[in-house]
């Protein structure tokens, strides 16, 4: 089978493959340790035996971690799903207006909105806490949802604006002539065409919010209401650390985002590249 492109060099390809393999191994090493440790008995899951495969599969670590993390896992779901949906929807509306209904000063507004992406969150922690206390949402999952929604608006707006830019404006003009109001044009034309945009924004927001630690620990002091990332940290905060349970907890915490990528990853790449070709 010689299906090589003209000019491609076999030696260069081998070197490339080797380099990529090495990088992949380096990248996957912590994952290996995590997975292996999570199915070991507690006495084997330590620094001495960390590279060894387990002698027998032991589920006690996973059971223990799940028992402790389950409420927080549910908290995270209750946080991530609404926050992702709401921030993506707001992003879609904003993106529609910036892409298709520009107004005087909209470019300046868009640019300043994007600045929001570059504000480090440490800077806004104290104002966030003060604000949430003021509106009586401090310490609640709803408060954390609000924080993530607002913090996500710049990136979701950017994603949707770029996505809508490539939808021909004539479609919207046709709908205007056909009698549609701008809002009808949005709900009946733009939204049905927005699936790739929602996949990209959704994956982005789901991953970011699920993996967030600092907002969670700052906004919610009550351990029973904290998201899983914070609870995971608490798991290792006891005197005698049972690494098999901690690693199992890390595994549990990592599963949803991994699943999202496996299921939607194909659309993610499509969504990112659609429009760049053609």
């Amino acid at each position, binding site marked *: 089978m010689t299906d090589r492109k003209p000019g491609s060099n076999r030696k260069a390809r081998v070197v490339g493959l080797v380099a990529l393999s090495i990088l992949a191994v380096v990248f996957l090493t912590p994952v290996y340790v995590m997975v292996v440790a999570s199915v070991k008995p507690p006495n084997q899951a330590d620094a001495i035996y960390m590279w060894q495969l387990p002698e027998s599969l032991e589920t006690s670590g996973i059971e223990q971690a799940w028992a402790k993390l389950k409420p927080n896992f549910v908290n995270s779901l209750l946080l991530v799903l609404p926050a992702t949906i709401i921030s993506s929807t707001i992003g879609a509306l904003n993106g529609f207006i910036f892409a298709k209904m520009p107004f005087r000063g909209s470019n300046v507004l868009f640019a300043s909105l994007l600045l929001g992406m570059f504000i480090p969150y440490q800077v806004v922690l104290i104002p966030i806490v003060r604000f949430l206390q003021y509106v009586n949402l401090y310490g609640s999952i709803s408060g954390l949802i609000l924080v993530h929604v607002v913090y996500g608006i710049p990136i979701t707006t950017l994603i949707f604006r770029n996505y809508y830019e490539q939808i*021909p404006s004539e*479609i919207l003009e*046709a*709908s*205007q002539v*056909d009698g549609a*109001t701008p809002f009808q044009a949005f709900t009946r034309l733009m939204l049905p065409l927005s699936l790739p945009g929602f996949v990209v924004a959704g994956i982005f927001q789901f991953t970011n919010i699920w993996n967030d630690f600092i907002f969670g620990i700052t906004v919610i002091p009550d351990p029973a209401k904290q998201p899983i990332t914070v609870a995971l940290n608490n798991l290792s905060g006891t005197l005698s650390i049972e690494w098999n349970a901690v690693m199992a907890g890390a595994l549990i915490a990592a599963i949803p985002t991994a699943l999202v990528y496996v299921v939607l990853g194909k659309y993610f790449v499509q969504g990112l590249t659609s429009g760049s070709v053609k």
Partner: protein
Amino acid sequence: MGDVAFRGATRQYPGSDFRAVDELDLDIEDGEFLVLVGPSGCGKSTSLRMLAGLEPVNSGTVSIGGRDVTDFAPRDRDIAMVFQNYALYPHMSVADNMAFALKIGKVPKDERTERVGRAAKLLDLVDYVGRTPKALSGGQRQRVAMGRALVRKPEVFLMDEPLSNLDAKLRVQTRTEISALQRRLETTTVYVTHDQVEAMTMGDRVAVLDRGTLQQVGSPQELYKTPDNVFVAGFIGSPGMNLIHDAPVSGTTANCAGFEIALERDILGRIASENSETVTIGLRPEHLTLGSEGVGIPLIVVGIEELGADAYIYGELMERGERSSSLFAIRVQGEARRRVGSTVWASPIPGETHVFSTKTGRRLNDSPRR
């Protein structure tokens, strides 16, 4: 009533010091098929979009049915539009595309189905109503775009180069279909095209625009026989009118590359009154005959376009012993063919000469055949 009136309608794009449409005054009668034609950038599409409400009007007014709609949103103007790239809703079936406006307008479902069904039948789309635009050919998409406008029963149809994405054969066929349809429905139609053949064959009247300014409005025959200015003369007709610029006038004749063309007295009077010493002479290809040597305008043949029944001879004008770059076309009947490189003498048929002012480009003839 679907009559349309532009009154001093002007559009200047922000950041441009050029008026895309400059004080357009145009009346379109109810039921009329009016074509806006001109080269790209002439303002024809902008005019149409001003009528649609998709483009703001900086000054002047636009009215439909006697109602000033200058500040109305497109949805309040009772118009339907066919776009150049069709602008079909990609996620909807053919039927839903056509029913969209009716749904928005809260037309009852029974009537909706009936109207869409009738349009589909009329446009030969019955077998395709369930398909999405992606699964249609270019011609079918074009018909869906037409259907979407038809079901609306609007006061005015607006069409923005609706045939430019079709291949040549389909374009000619669809041209005829649209004309026939419009005649049957008797709905006022404003049609934009850059193709003067399309304009001449479809329009009851044709409005020629250039650089944002209306040049002339009239029936295809009027535009062809009595063009108001040099631009219209050169734009209408295929091949266009042969133009000889800066022909010196002396006595009662204008000198066209050595050939003297007699000018009527009132033309001479107009030339004198604007203090000109030259004119632009226009001659249609069919108003030239091949004269014997030395009789007529000398041309060097550079090409022959054979059309079967007749042919066009293209030649370069010999001016003061030099070849000029502009091509001259002569229509000849079956018998008279000439070799490339040979010299022919084009002799104008008396009384078929168009004379334009060098200074203003305006027509100086009377309009004998109006």
